[in-house]
């Protein structure tokens, strides 16, 4: 589906040649720009008149292939509700001897971290980037060593070299305080460093430094059998295990040219909704902790525990690991377990309704949440913010509808009520969206169970799987759209895998929201987004 109007629009703004071809999927478009200098204008044409958003950026090292270059793919997607399911990739070739591309960050703010990551891991310099500090590799990383280049052996530790203190971006002035927080926090939570500058209680500026949990998982997966690498993809993030496992599987199934059977697709979607449900319910409870409403915290934790025990009964794992596998699902859901599931989700529904009633009837909680941590609609659009954080700021996007997967990819997809709050953007809006989406998940699980017909659970994937093809998928995880990009080498092993998690795009939004709040409200603001560090850092 090469759309002539589309490619003409790109040709107008390009000084070099523009070659459009179909792919990676039949509905997608890949546009090869012969001059890297054309990138900013082409990206502006996509996000402006065509109201597309940046989905992901994938760099690859192809110096060992006949092309002998590095490549960068900037993947965009439509944002209008009801737009067709497609990805548009702008592809440029980068000379490995002079690895430079023009930075898109001033045109596409969402490209900020992608470009810094590619500079750290591939040594591809985004020329003109407004904030080119290291992102993924921290203090003491040796200069000129790029771990995702193919020539780098990633299997050993790299010595730490003496380093200066990281240059945090801080505000200065009379009466301005700097408050360093983390990376080790006071609770049982993931590590990140937050450098506040404040006047009194008011946050002037927040510089968040993440990637403490960077484990080098994308490098780790390279060279593995794609069926073994699945177990790593499933473990990139604990609380997104089902979503990331599914995203990897759908990308791999595209490469293999197979579809999971209908019953497997329904069971996969049940797993996705169960994951969303236990996350959302637990997160509503955790938000109560930020507002010192301990009844709410304990109730949320109890409801989440009940759901995780149900996960263990259904799949043998409290995080739903081991259910979704390449080609389908590993376990069936027999009638007795479905009966227990129906009771559990009904109890969850009444428990959640009760909890939300107590929150909404409690002025001391509502007062903390209302107008706290505001994310403006335009900022959410500019940063390509994903998931419920976007929907609470009035952005009508949901990958279940925009890039159908699981049961939504079937011939008669169930209706999906996408909850958006047009005038929202504060912490209360994010709590409200969470509660409404949890109810929708409960309804969807019931709908999927009703649609379950007997049938096969899995199609076999025969190794070696074809090399050279690209698989791309977008999954609506509990925190929003996660984009998976996978390519195998000629021997059928993983050549490159990249995950752009929703948290990756949403962290910069937390910083903006925190700057509308006071320091003591930061835990509340942070919890209202409830982002993952591990699937951001990988």
């Amino acid at each position, binding site marked *: 589906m090469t759309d002539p109007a589309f490619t003409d629009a790109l040709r107008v703004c390009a000084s070099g040649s523009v070659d459009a071809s179909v792919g990676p999927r039949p509905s997608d478009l890949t546009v090869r720009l012969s001059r890297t200098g054309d990138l900013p204008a082409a990206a502006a044409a996509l996000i402006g008149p065509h109201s597309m958003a940046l989905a992901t950026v994938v760099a690859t090292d192809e110096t060992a292939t006949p092309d002998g270059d590095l490549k960068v793919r900037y993947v965009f997607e439509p944002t209008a509700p009801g737009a067709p399911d497609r990805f548009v990739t702008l592809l440029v070739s980068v000379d490995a001897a002079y690895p430079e591309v023009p930075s898109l960050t001033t045109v596409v703010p969402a490209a900020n971290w992608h470009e810094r990551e590619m500079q750290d891991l591939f040594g591809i310099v985004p020329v003109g980037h407004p904030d080119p500090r290291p992102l993924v*590799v*921290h203090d003491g990383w040796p200069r000129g060593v790029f*771990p995702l280049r193919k020539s*780098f052996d*990633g*299997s*050993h*530790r*790299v010595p*730490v070299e003496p380093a200066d203190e990281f240059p945090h971006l801080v505000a200065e002035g009379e009466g301005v305080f700097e408050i360093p927080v983390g*990376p*080790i926090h*006071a*609770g*049982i*939570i*993931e*590590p990140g460093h937050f450098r506040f500058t404040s006047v009194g209680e008011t946050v002037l500026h927040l510089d968040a430094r993440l*990637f*403490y*949990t*960077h*484990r*080098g*998982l994308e*490098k*780790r997966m390279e060279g593995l059998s794609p*069926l*073994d690498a*699945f*177990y*790593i993809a499933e*473990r990139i*993030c*604990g*609380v997104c*295990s089902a979503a990331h496992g599914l995203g990897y599987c759908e990308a791999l199934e595209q490469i293999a040219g197979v579809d999971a059977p209908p019953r497997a697709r329904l069971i996969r979607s049940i797993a996705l909704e169960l994951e969303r449900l236990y996350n959302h319910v637990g997160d509503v409870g955790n938000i109560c902790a930020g507002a010192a409403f301990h*009844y709410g915290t*304990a*109730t949320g*934790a*109890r409801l*989440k*525990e009940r759901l*995780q*025990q149900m996960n*263990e*009964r259904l*799949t*043998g*794992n*409290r*995080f739903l*690991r*081991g259910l979704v596998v390449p080609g389908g699902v590993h376990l069936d859901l027999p009638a007795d377990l479905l009966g227990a599931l129906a009771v559990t989700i009904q109890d969850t529904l009444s428990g959640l309704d*009760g909890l939300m009633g*107590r929150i909404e009837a409690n002025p001391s909680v509502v007062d903390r949440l209302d107008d706290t941590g505001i994310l403006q609609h335009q900022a959410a659009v500019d940063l390509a913010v994903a998931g419920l954080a976007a929907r609470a700021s009035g952005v009508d996007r949901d990958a279940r509808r925009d890039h159908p997967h699981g049961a939504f990819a079937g011939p008669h997809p169930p209706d999906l009520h996408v909850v958006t709050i047009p005038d929202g953007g504060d912490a209360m809006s994010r709590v409200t969206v969470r509660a409404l989406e949890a109810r929708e998940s409960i309804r969807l699980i019931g709908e999927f169970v009703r649609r379950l017909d007997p049938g096969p659970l899995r199609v076999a994937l025969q190794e070696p799987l074809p090399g050279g093809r690209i698989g791309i998928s977008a999954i609506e995880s509990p925190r929003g759209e996660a984009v998976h990009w996978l390519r195998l080498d000629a021997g059928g092993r993983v050549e490159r895998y990249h995950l752009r998690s929703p948290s990756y795009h949403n962290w910069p939004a937390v910083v903006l929201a925190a700057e509308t709040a006071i320091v003591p409200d930061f835990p509340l603001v942070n919890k209202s987004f409830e982002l*993952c*560090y*591990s699937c951001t850092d990988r």
Partner: protein
Amino acid sequence: MLRILINALRTGVVTTRYPAEPSVPPDRFRGAPVFRPGSHLPPPSVCPAGAISEHFDAAGRHVALDLARCIFCGQCAEDPWTDAVSMGRDFELAAHRRDDLRIEVVADQPAIPAAAPDRNAQALRASSEIHRVLGRSLHLRHLDAGSCNACDWELAALLNPVYDVRRLGIDFVASPRHADGVVVTGPVTRNLETAVRRTVEAIPDPRVVIAVGACAASGGIVGEGYASAGGVDRVLPVDVYIPGCPPRPEAILFGILVAVGRLNARSARRQE
């Protein structure tokens, strides 16, 4: 306020009796793999986590399973190995030494622990020192050293009304200065190594170090790499290893009670 009290009373007590009463995981739960003697065991390539190894000598084929590395995915118990391996239900797997978590089968004979138990090991002494100085109560600091967050959530679950570890004198504290030890999750990433060392050094002696989950216990699926040390014991001495991906909350609780000397590790029980 009244509604909250009524709701709380209506909910009643939801707290488990574990460890006073045993906990039985559900049917589908995948605990420690059980090797069936006399059958041909699967090759190492079956395991995506690299937990199975083999070598040959005069006695025949040795097949070893490293529970610290196991992610409990069940691949080794799949067709055609269903007769040779089954996924057991045992989740109380914590041990004082890595070697106690190695199960070895020689020439398809019954499974034996790879290492003879050593009750005088350094780790055990640390545990008894903890027990002597601190008694039965233990205050722990959590340290995320690059986990996927699953182990962290299970630690947090220990504080929920169902597990409520405070009933056992165990609590998680905010400052290392207030702690008797750490529970570490994750393989120790390069970007956290300094923070991990400094946090542990801030804990007064005697202190106990508990590695929770496959990544902390052995590097797990992450292993050693440019960004990962490949396990807590590459950076710090570890007193107790808790296998699992992630270990369920009761498995972590079991490991904590082993660390404080209130329960015996699996390897010690097996000898009795």
